[in-house]
């Protein structure tokens, strides 16, 4: 049974994508297919979680070809958690899409693309083969390319050019690194790589490849100084797409980095972790400063993604069990929170028709609930206790102090106050301040159907509740990941 | 003995011919001239491949020759299509 379950997060959205392709004209069918399939993935992920927590790591050999020859799919704690988060994200964004995506985009394959996006994401989480990871990355990327450009508005196209080009460069680094690794070691299975690398004659060559992976995944996860594609593009597509991207995509890069650097490239941590920690610090700072300079909800949020990637990398680079647990917790927290913030930004846009701070105001007065819903993820992002972001920050800071990494830890604290600054900036400008006098007071929201309003708010509430749950009932989540299983 | 020489010689000559054609590709002057050059290069590559098939005694190589035939033609049609659209556009 498990050997079927483990593939379902891939097969279900795959099948969903096929179905939506067949029903191009029937939007209702497409919607149903997508939300049902993402719901199913979430349910499956719960079974997977249950299994890994009771019986441990489970793996399956695709096609029955034994490792390292065939491709292995593995579910361990880390991947099970990531899958469940991805299911949750798919489900909540599906609901939001019903309320926010225009009929044209729906007709032109929106749900197909979301499905394939999640095929790629889930595949990336499950695979235990390095080249197969490349393939799922590409599936994910290709879907994201289309999603970011679909609709073809001018900013979308401009953003997409940078998004696509830089991500392709990342893919090339990845591909080349995998190729070189195969050339050195002669295998692609991650576990097998881990074993064979330990006894290789040329550890420095392995480290060279490891550094190449830092570049490849560094671009994907928007690490300094490789992040440029993200702030150039994430604010251009419809809000729900930004939301999914903001939540999931860069985190897949970080996930891959965690996988690779905790499992495969453990032979030269002084170099790899040293590099990572420097980049992590710079990423945090540059990202948060970038956000401080912006005056558009989504641009602020986009730069914050960069900044927070720095935290996750910091956890990875500190490399202690607590630090890695902190990084993983950070990922979980950040996916939920950042997605939600983008969705809320989307609602603001639905109300006022803009994301620009100087054209917004008075939302808190008119929509106090929305204000509350904003504060939950926003404060969580800034690490205000006891919300989820606090525990993430806490774990990392504690790990940092334990590793006596004073500078990066101090920096991480400093950056968190700047994060708070940015969140409050949005709060002040969008929610608290009155609408500027020279801006026409429009409220498109009140004209929406009840169904549309619900579609918009329900996912936001779901995610806010998740944030609260993770914050208040942190214990299981903080213990959850621990270190990815060293030996699949 | 002679046959081996013949194969090698022919390989060299076809290779050299490709080189000559590439000169036309560089010289142009018009896109159509370059297209002629590209078309000819791919065509000559068929002969090159056939000769290599003999040299290496690997017959599967000839499948590439057939594909190359398609490819050469399709490519040329594509370029011609471009040139024709261009001429329309320029009017």
């Amino acid at each position, binding site marked *: 049974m498990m050997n079927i379950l483990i593939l379902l997060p891939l097969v279900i959205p*795959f099948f969903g994508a*096929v179905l939506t392709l067949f029903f191009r004209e029937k939007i209702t069918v497409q919607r149903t297919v997508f939300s049902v399939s993402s719901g199913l993935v979430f349910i499956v992920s719960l079974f997977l979680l249950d299994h890994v927590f009771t019986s441990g790591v489970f793996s399956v050999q695709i*096609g029955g070809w034994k490792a390292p020859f065939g491709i292995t799919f593995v579910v361990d704690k880390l991947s099970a958690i990531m899958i469940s988060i991805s299911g949750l994200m798919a489900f909540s964004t599906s609901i939001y899409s019903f309320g926010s995506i225009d009929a044209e985009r729906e007709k032109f394959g929106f749900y197909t693309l979301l499905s394939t996006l999640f095929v790629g994401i889930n595949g990336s989480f499950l695979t235990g083969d390095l080249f197969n990871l490349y393939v799922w990355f590409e599936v994910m990327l290709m879907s994201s390319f289309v999603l970011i450009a679909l609709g073809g508005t001018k900013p979308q196209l401009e953003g997409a050019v940078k998004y696509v080009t830089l991500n392709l460069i990342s893919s090339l680094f990845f591909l080349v690194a995998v190729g070189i690794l195969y050339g050195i070691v002669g295998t692609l299975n991650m576990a097998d790589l881990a074993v064979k690398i330990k006894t290789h004659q040329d550890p420095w060559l392995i480290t060279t490849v490891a550094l190449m992976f830092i570049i490849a995944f560094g671009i994907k996860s928007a690490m300094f100084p490789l992040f440029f594609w993200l702030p150039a593009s994430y604010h251009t597509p419809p809000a729900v797409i930004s939301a999914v991207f903001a939540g999931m995509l860069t985190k897949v890069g970080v996930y891959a980095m965690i996988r690779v650097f905790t499992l495969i490239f453990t032979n030269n941590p002084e170099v790899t972790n040293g590099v990572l920690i420097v980049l992590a610090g710079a990423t945090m700072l540059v990202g948060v400063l970038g956000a401080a300079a912006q005056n558009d909800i989504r641009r602020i949020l986009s730069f914050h993604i960069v900044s927070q990637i720095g935290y996750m990398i910091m956890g990875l680079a500190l490399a202690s069990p607590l630090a890695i647990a902190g990084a993983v917790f950070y990922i979980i927290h950040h996916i939920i929170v950042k997605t939600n913030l983008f969705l809320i930004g989307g609602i603001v846009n639905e109300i006022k028709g803009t994301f620009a701070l100087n054209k917004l105001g008075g939302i808190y007065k008119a929509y106090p609930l929305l204000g509350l819903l904003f504060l939950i993820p926003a404060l969580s992002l800034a690490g205000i206790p006891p919300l989820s972001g606090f525990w993430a920050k806490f774990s990392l800071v504690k790990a940092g102090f334990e590793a006596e990494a004073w500078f990066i830890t101090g920096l991480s604290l400093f950056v968190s106050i700047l994060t708070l600054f940015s969140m409050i900036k949005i709060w002040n400008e969008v929610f608290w301040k009155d609408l500027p006098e020279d801006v026409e007071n429009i409220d498109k929201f009140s004209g929406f159907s009840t169904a549309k309003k619900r579609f918009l708010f329900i996912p936001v509430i779901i995610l806010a509740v998740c944030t609260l749950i993770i914050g208040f009932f942190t214990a299981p989540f903080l213990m959850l990941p621990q270190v990815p299983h060293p030996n699949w | 003995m002679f046959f081996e020489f013949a194969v090698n010689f022919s390989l060299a000559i076809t290779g050299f011919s490709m080189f000559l054609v590439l000169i036309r590709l560089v010289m142009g002057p018009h896109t159509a001239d370059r297209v002629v050059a590209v078309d000819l290069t791919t065509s000559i590559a068929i002969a090159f491949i056939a000769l290599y098939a003999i040299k290496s005694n690997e017959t599967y190589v000839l499948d590439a020759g057939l594909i190359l035939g398609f490819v050469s033609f399709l490519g040329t049609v594509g370029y011609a299509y471009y040139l024709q659209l261009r001429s329309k556009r320029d009017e």
Partner: protein
Amino acid sequence: MSTLILRTAVKYIIPGMFLFSLFLLFRGHNEPGGGFVGGLVAAAAIILYTLANGVEKAEKMLHVSPQKLIAAGLLVALLAGITGWIAGKEFMTGIWLDLPIPVMGKFGTPVLFDIGVYLLVTGMVVKVIFTLADTREEGNQ
């Protein structure tokens, strides 16, 4: 680019190309070829036809919409994978019929998978070309 000569030539060339594409597909398991190249050659044939006769006629010739081909390709590939489960084995395990067929050799789910690839590749390329070569809506842009 409707020239009489091209149109006429293409009419006689492309059946052969289709044939060759299927040939590539079916013997790909044993000799050079396979679903990709097969699909690409089939698509090349349709492209030739499209360039010579325009998208509209090409759509008519094709009978099925390329999008359906894509969907069918994915579905067939998926089915080939799931057959492994049905047979009580792992996903994508090769299940073979014990019946030799010329050219193809044996028939089994990997061949079915390759057929899926063929359909998808054909559909994909054709879809793209139809989209790009379709000048019917160019006027209003």
